[in-house]
C-alpha cells in the first residue's frame, strides 16, 4: 500500500493504546477497532524474533497438524482390561492425570486415588498398607498421557481396570480411558474405602463384560458424530455431558438387551449409565486424545496436543516439541462453589479432562451449552464471549463440531502457543473442582484460566529448537 493509496481510501484505524483516540476515529471515519492490548508475556529475549523468522515453517507444520486434528475419526471400538491393552502397563504401574509427578508431590485427591487403586488391586488390605506401598518406590507412577490414555480428575488407572478402546480410524492410533464411576464416593476424587472398592469391582465384573459384548454387537460407535450432535443439544462435553450420555445410551441399549443374558445385569448397567450424566466424559476425553495423538511429532508445529493437570502442576505438550512437558504450578480455580464450600476447600486444578479444550471442546465450546452458563457468569452472552475469545488463540475451526448460537461456526480448535503468548491470552477450561481432601468429591465447577507459565516455557523451547 503506498501512502497515496492511504489518501484515496476511507481511513480505518486499528487503535492500540489510549482508547479515546479510537473514539475520535470512530466518529470521523467508522468503523475503527480497539485492540484489547496487554503487555507481552515474559519469555526469553530472542524467542519472539526466532519464531517470527521461522513463521512460514511453523505455519506449514501447523497446517499439517490441523489437517490431522480436523480429519480425526475417533470411534469406540471395544473394551478390555488395562493390563491387556494399555501400552507399557505393568503390574506395578499406576497411571495418573497430568504431567509426571512423584508420590511426595501428589495432592490429596491423587494420593487417595492411588491408595484406593492399590486396595482395589489387592496389593494392600488397609489404607495404611496402601500408603506405605505407594510411598515405597515400588510403584511406577506415570502420566496417562504417556500411555495413550486419559483420565478425569486423579485419572488413576491400575492394571485390572477395564478401559474403553477408542480408535482413530483415519490414522490408526488408539486411546484408552477407564469407565466413569458416577458421583458420590469415587476414586477419581480420591475417595477410598469399601464402597469405592465395591463399585470398582462391580464395574470390572458386571459393567465391563456387558458393555464389551454390547459394543461387539453394535459395532464401532462414531464418537465424532455423537459429540457433534451433543453440541447441538447443549453439551460442551467437558462440564456437561447429559446429551452425549443420552445419545450413547440410545446407541447401545438395544445391543445390551440383545447380548446380556442376565436381565438383572442388563437393567443394572442401563440404570448405571442412565444415572450418570458424566458417563460420556470418559468417551469425549479419549476421543480428543485419539484425535490429538495422531498429530504428535510434527516438527516445527506450535500447536498444543496436551493440556493436563495433576493437582500440583499444569502441563502442556506441543506437536512440535516431542515428549517434552512444560509445566507450572496448577492454580486453585476461581469457580462457582457448591453450597457450604469455598475456594479455601478447593484443590488446585486437576485432571486430564482439559484434553477436551485442547481438542476444541469444553471451555472452547461453552457457547454451545447455555444450560451451564451459571458457571461462567450467568448470562448466555458470557458463554459466547468465552468461545469467541478462544478463536484468538487457535489455528483453525472444527469442521464437525459447531456452535448453533454462532450460526454453526466450527469450534475454535488447535491452540497455537505463539498466539497464547504473543496475545497474552490463556486458554479457558470449563472444569469441575475437587476438594483438596481426598475423597470429599466435587465442590464446584466453573471456568478456569490456564496458567501462562507452561505456554511461555513451550514457546521458548520451540524457539530454541528452531533457532
Amino acid at each position: 500500500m503506498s501512502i497515496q493509496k492511504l489518501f484515496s481510501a476511507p481511513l480505518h484505524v486499528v487503535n492500540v493504546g489510549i482508547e479515546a483516540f479510537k473514539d475520535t476515529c470512530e466518529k470521523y471515519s467508522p468503523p475503527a477497532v480497539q485492540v484489547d492490548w496487554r503487555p507481552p508475556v515474559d519469555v526469553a529475549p530472542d524467542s519472539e524474533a526466532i519464531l517470527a523468522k521461522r513463521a512460514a515453517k511453523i505455519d506449514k507444520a501447523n497446517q499439517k497438524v490441523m489437517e490431522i486434528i480436523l480429519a480425526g475419526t475417533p470411534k469406540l471400538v471395544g473394551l478390555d482390561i488395562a493390563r491387556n491393552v494399555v501400552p507399557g502397563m505393568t503390574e506395578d504401574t499406576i497411571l495418573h492425570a497430568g504431567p509426571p509427578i512423584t508420590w511426595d508431590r501428589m495432592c490429596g485427591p491423587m494420593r487417595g486415588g492411588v491408595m484406593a487403586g492399590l486396595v482395589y488391586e489387592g496389593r494392600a488390605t488397609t489404607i495404611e498398607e496402601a500408603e506405605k506401598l505407594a510411598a515405597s518406590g515400588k510403584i511406577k507412577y506415570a502420566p496417562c498421557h504417556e500411555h495413550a490414555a486419559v483420565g478425569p480428575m486423579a485419572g488413576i488407572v491400575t492394571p485390572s481396570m477395564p478401559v474403553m478402546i477408542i480408535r482413530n480410524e483415519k490414522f490408526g492410533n488408539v486411546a484408552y480411558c477407564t469407565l466413569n464411576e458416577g458421583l458420590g464416593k469415587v476414586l477419581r476424587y480420591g475417595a477410598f474405602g469399601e464402597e469405592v472398592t465395591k463399585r470398582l469391582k462391580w464395574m470390572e465384573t458386571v459393567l465391563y463384560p456387558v458393555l464389551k459384548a454390547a459394543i461387539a454387537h453394535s459395532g464401532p460407535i462414531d464418537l465424532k458424530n455423537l459429540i457433534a450432535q451433543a453440541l447441538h443439544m447443549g453439551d460442551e462435553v467437558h462440564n456437561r455431558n447429559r446429551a452425549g450420555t443420552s445419545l450413547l445410551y440410545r446407541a447401545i441399549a438395544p445391543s445390551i438387551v440383545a447380548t446380556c443374558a442376565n436381565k438383572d445385569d442388563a437393567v443394572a448397567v442401563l440404570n448405571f449409565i442412565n444415572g450418570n450424566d458424566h458417563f460420556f466424559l470418559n468417551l469425549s476425553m479419549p476421543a480428543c486424545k485419539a484425535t490429538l495423538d495422531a498429530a504428535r511429532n510434527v516438527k516445527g508445529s506450535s500447536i498444543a496436543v496436551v493440556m493436563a493437570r495433576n493437582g500440583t502442576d499444569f502441563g502442556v505438550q506441543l506437536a512440535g516439541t516431542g515428549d517434552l512437558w512444560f509445566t507450572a504450578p496448577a492454580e486453585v480455580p476461581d469457580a462457582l462453589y457448591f453450597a457450604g464450600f469455598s475456594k479455601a476447600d478447593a484443590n488446585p486444578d486437576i485432571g486430564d479432562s482439559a484434553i477436551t479444550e485442547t481438542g476444541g471442546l469444553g471451555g472452547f465450546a461453552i457457547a454451545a451449552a447455555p444450560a451451564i452458563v451459571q458457571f461462567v457468569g450467568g448470562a448466555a452472552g458470557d458463554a459466547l464471549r468465552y468461545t469467541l475469545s478462544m478463536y484468538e488463540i487457535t489455528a483453525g475451526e472444527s469442521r464437525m463440531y459447531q456452535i448453533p448460537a454462532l450460526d454453526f461456526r466450527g469450534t475454535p480448535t488447535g491452540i497455537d502457543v505463539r498466539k497464547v503468548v504473543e496475545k497474552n491470552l490463556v486458554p479457558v477450561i470449563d472444569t469441575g473442582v475437587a476438594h483438596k481432601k481426598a475423597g470429599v468429591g466435587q465442590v464446584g465447577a466453573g471456568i478456569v484460566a490456564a496458567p501462562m507459565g507452561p505456554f511461555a516455557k513451550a514457546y521458548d523451547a520451540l524457539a530454541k529448537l528452531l533457532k
Partner: protein
Amino acid sequence: MNTVGRVKQGFYFDSVTLMRVGRELSGFPGVAEASVVMATEANKSILAMSDLLLSEFKKSGDQDLLIVVKAKDAKAADAALAKAEELLSRKKKPAAAGGTAAPAPRDVASAVAGLPGANLALISVAGRYAAREARKALDLGLHVMLFSDNVSIEEEVALKKFAHKKGLIVMGPDCGTSIVNGVPLAFANVVSKGPIGIVGASGTGTQEVTCIIANEGSGVSQAIGTGGRDVKDAVGGIAFLDAMQALADDRETKVILLVSKPPQPGVLKKIYALIRKIKKPVVALFLGEGGTPATLEQAALLAVAHANRADPVQALAHLTRRDEVLAAEARALVAKRKKTKGRYLRGLFSGGTFCAEAQVVLDGIVRHLYSNAPLGDSLKLKNAWKPEKNSVVDLGEDEFTVGRAHPMIDFTLRNKMILEQAADPDVAVILLDVVLGYGANLDPAAELVPVIQKAAKQVFVVAGVNGTIGDPQNRAQVVEALREAGAHVQLTNAAACKLAGLIAAEVARKNR
C-alpha cells in the same frame, strides 16, 4: 493517615484511564493522595518518592496494577479502594455486558481480520512495547502512527526503513498529531478539508498551523506528523521525505507546508533537493532558523495566501498591522491598570513548539529570555522549576512529565506554577497556551478559570487559545470564560506571545 494498597495481577489499563481513576479517587471524601499505576520500575520509583510504595508492591511487575490510597482513616481508605475497583471494573465491562458483543481483538492481526479496509494502526502503548506493535502492523501492510515516545532511535530507523521499502509510512515515534483524510488522529483539531498539505515534525506546531489555516477559512488535505527525531541525520528524514513526496503526488494538495525545528544538515539538504523537484508551492518553517516565515502564524498565513492565489506579501503585511494593534492594546492595558508590579514575563507552555515559537516572537521585545528548551539567543534555565527574569517554560519536557500525564491533559502542575509565578514580586505577565482539539483536556476552562481569577489580581494573564470552532471544547465558550476570569485572550500563540511581550516591556518601562 492510613495508607492502603492493592496489587492486581495481570491487569492492564492505559495511562490516561489510570490517571482519570486516580484523579477521581483523589477527590474522594477523606482521601489525601491516591495513585493507580502499572507496576513498572519507573512508576514504583515515583511511588517511593511520595512514600506510597507499600512493601507488598515491591515484588509486583510490569503486568500488575497497583492501587494505593492515603486517607485520613482506615474506613475512608477502604472505601476509596472499593471505589477504585468499581471504577476499573466499569471500564472493563462495556455497555454490552450481558449482551453478545464479541470480545475485542487481542492484537493487531485479529483486529485487521475483523476490519476490512483497515489501513492505519494508531499506537500509543508504553514505549518499550510500541516498536513491537508497529512492526506487526507494518507486516500486515498497515501505515503506522506511533504516538508513543521512548522508542529507541535504532528501532525508529529499522521501522522506518522497513516501512519505506513496503511503501508505508511510520509517523512517529512521539508523533502527537496527524490529520489523515479529515480524521483527527491523537492530539489534533477539527479542520475542514482543503488544499494545504502539511508535513510536521512537531506535534503542536502542526496543530497550530492547521488551526490557523482553518480559522482563515482555508483547509487541510492531509497533515502528516513524522515525530521530531525524523529530521535528525540518524533517521535521515525517511518519513518526512516520503510524506512530502506523497503530498506532491496528491491531487487534492495544492500547497505544501513544512513545519519542523531546524533539520540536521544532511536531512535539510535532502528536503531542499526535494522541494526543488516539487512543482507545487512549498512553504517551509524551520522554527528558530530565522528568515521568513519565522513563526507558525506566518507560515500558515503564507500557505493560505498561496492556496488562495493571493499575494503572500500582503498576507504578512496584514500581520504587521495586527501587531500595531496589539502594541496599542498593550499600552492601553498597562495605562489602565492602577498598580503594576514586577517587570518580567513568565510563559508556561503545555506545547513544546509553542514555547519555541514564543522565543522567536519575544526575541527583540524582551531581553534576558530564558527557557528550559532554549532556542536561538535564549539562555538555558538552570532549574526548569524556578524560572528567572523573562522565562518561557516547556512543561512537556521530560523533567515535568515523568510519571505524569501530558500537561495538555493534566493541568495540575501548571496551575500550581501559575499561582507561584503570579505571587512572585518580579513577575508582571503570565503567558499561557490553551490547546484545544481531540486528545487535549476536554474542559480547560473549568480548571483554569479559578486559577486565572486569582493570578489576574496580581499580574497580567495572557492566554493563547489554540483551536478551531469545530473542536469538541467549544472554543467560543472557553475564550469567554477565560476573558471573564481576567485573561487577555488571543487566538494564535504568536499573537498571545506578542501581546504578553509588549505588556511586559511596557510595564518594565513604566516601573523603571
